[in-house]
């Protein structure tokens, strides 16, 4: 037991060390903001900590966390971020290369994702960043496979026609 917080349940710290990086990347794709992504991740980790024996007993801690990440994100808009000020765009900490171009590309994707509905955004991230099937995506979000298909199709159409993403996808635009 530390002075500042209770001792984590067995295996929790190892799980966080191994998987939180990937979860944080998903959280960023959902929120588009590093601070919110960390907040979202820590929120679901807090829930998992309190239920860790149950989470482990179910056999797939990462699946539990991933589902919690997405469902928490989808449900949060009513409670926390609705009245939020648009945050200043943080400068990306890029490595060598065309820094301005990389930063602009990232910002374009972030803005395009921000134009999707929360459900569409979650579906896009699950399907294309997490490589989940339609069925697994439906399971994670607690909706029907048909909803995933419909919303996925609408999201892709929106991304294809997004003005910020035309630089990347114009060769793919179907009239």
């Amino acid at each position, binding site marked *: 037991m*530390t*002075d*500042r*917080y*209770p001792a*984590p349940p067995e295996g*929790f*710290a190892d799980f*966080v060390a191994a998987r*939180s*990086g990937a979860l*944080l*990347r998903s959280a*960023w*794709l959902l929120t588009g*903001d*590093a*601070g*919110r*992504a*960390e*907040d979202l*991740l*820590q*929120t679901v*980790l*807090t829930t998992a*900590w*309190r239920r860790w024996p149950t989470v482990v007993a179910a056999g797939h801690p990462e699946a539990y966390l991933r589902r919690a990440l997405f469902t928490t994100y989808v449900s949060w808009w009513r409670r926390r*971020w609705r*009245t*939020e*000020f*648009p*945050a*200043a*765009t*943080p*400068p*990306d*900490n*890029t*490595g060598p290369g065309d820094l301005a171009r990389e930063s602009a*590309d*990232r910002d374009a*994707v*972030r803005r395009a*994702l921000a134009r999707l509905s929360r459900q569409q955004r979650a579906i*896009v*991230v699950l399907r*294309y*960043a997490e*490589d989940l099937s339609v069925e697994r995506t439906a399971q994670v979000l607690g909706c029907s496979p048909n909803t995933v298909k419909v919303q996925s199709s609408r999201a*892709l159409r929106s*991304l*294809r026609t997004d003005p910020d*993403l035309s630089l*990347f*996808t114009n060769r*793919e635009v179907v009239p």
Partner: protein
Amino acid sequence: MTRDDEDIRGLLAGAVPPLAAPPDRVAEVGVRVRRHRRRMAGGAAAAVALTVGLGVGLPTLVAAPDRDRGAPATTPSPQGAAACPTGFDTRPDLTSVRYGDDEPLVPTGAVEVTSCQVPVGSGPHPASRIGPRTLTTGVDEIVRLLNAQPPTQQDGRGRPLPAGEQMMCTAKATYEETALVLRYPDREPVTVWTDENCRVAVTATHGRGVDFGVIAAFLDRYRAQLAATTDPATVTTPACADTFPVKRMRKNSEDGPLSRIRLNNSDPYLALPTPLIEVTACRYEVRGQTGELVGQQRRRAGADEVRAVLNQALDRPAKSSRCGDWPDYEEPTLFDTLTVADATGETAEFWIRHEPCRSVNGLEALTPELLDVMTDLLGRPPSR
């Protein structure tokens, strides 16, 4: 997978910037877990207390409405240590915290605020360094001011940064930044880091623009606390040194007159905001490279009358020295030092050169009134 699918996948894969992780994410989550447990326990305890209070306290109050209300509440002890940061390795990335939400920057209920000066690089000159300053009165006001800070970075005119613009920071050389450590009776300390160049204040998770009026308010409160808790009988000025190295008076010397009073002063146009308890004047004649003490006077009665004179000398427009500038500097041959101690127990030092020319260090102008004070204390200085 279609070409569209591959494109989207590629876009998403390359969109995530490098993300900074907190130094100990498990610890951060652990703190949230503990907070959650306390909230739950507090809620249950409050429900029990309310039930018991209504059942027992209400009839008692009704039966004896005029009885003594009992002893005043005591301030609960704060948890955790007020550990001042000594560097910036633990400061959150200013651009990664969340700006602009409607959550308070710091929780209410703090019972103690410690102001810490975190050195930038090698920090300020040793004589200008000040240790942690802890405020235990008026803490609520500081918390209120912190939570009333603007939601996002402001420009020099106090206008918010337009949405979508990157944080802008000046590159002014600073020797230190201020961090405030707030302590609570029921939670771990919270550290608020301020950044003078970026004009923001951040905690581990949240950020605001910063109006440095909150630091001024802290200093005003702190000075009042010091004055209220310092016994005037213990306040004194240092005795005159027998010798004084003349090189300290050279232009651009880093070892100029020291004002510890200034370090707690929020008003740049008022050198001495607190009543004076004692003044000490020393007169030196220079022999070789050393000033030798030839006269001294320490005075407590009427010491505060000197304060108005010194404040007036600071408020005057600066006058160029008649002693010439570096490297054509004329070394003094006769000069005075004046050291004052105020009700907070801190001191400030001023130097007045008489020969071969007149000038002052630590103030803006050598006024006739200040010359009168020095004459009253040490006798008439030689006139040119």
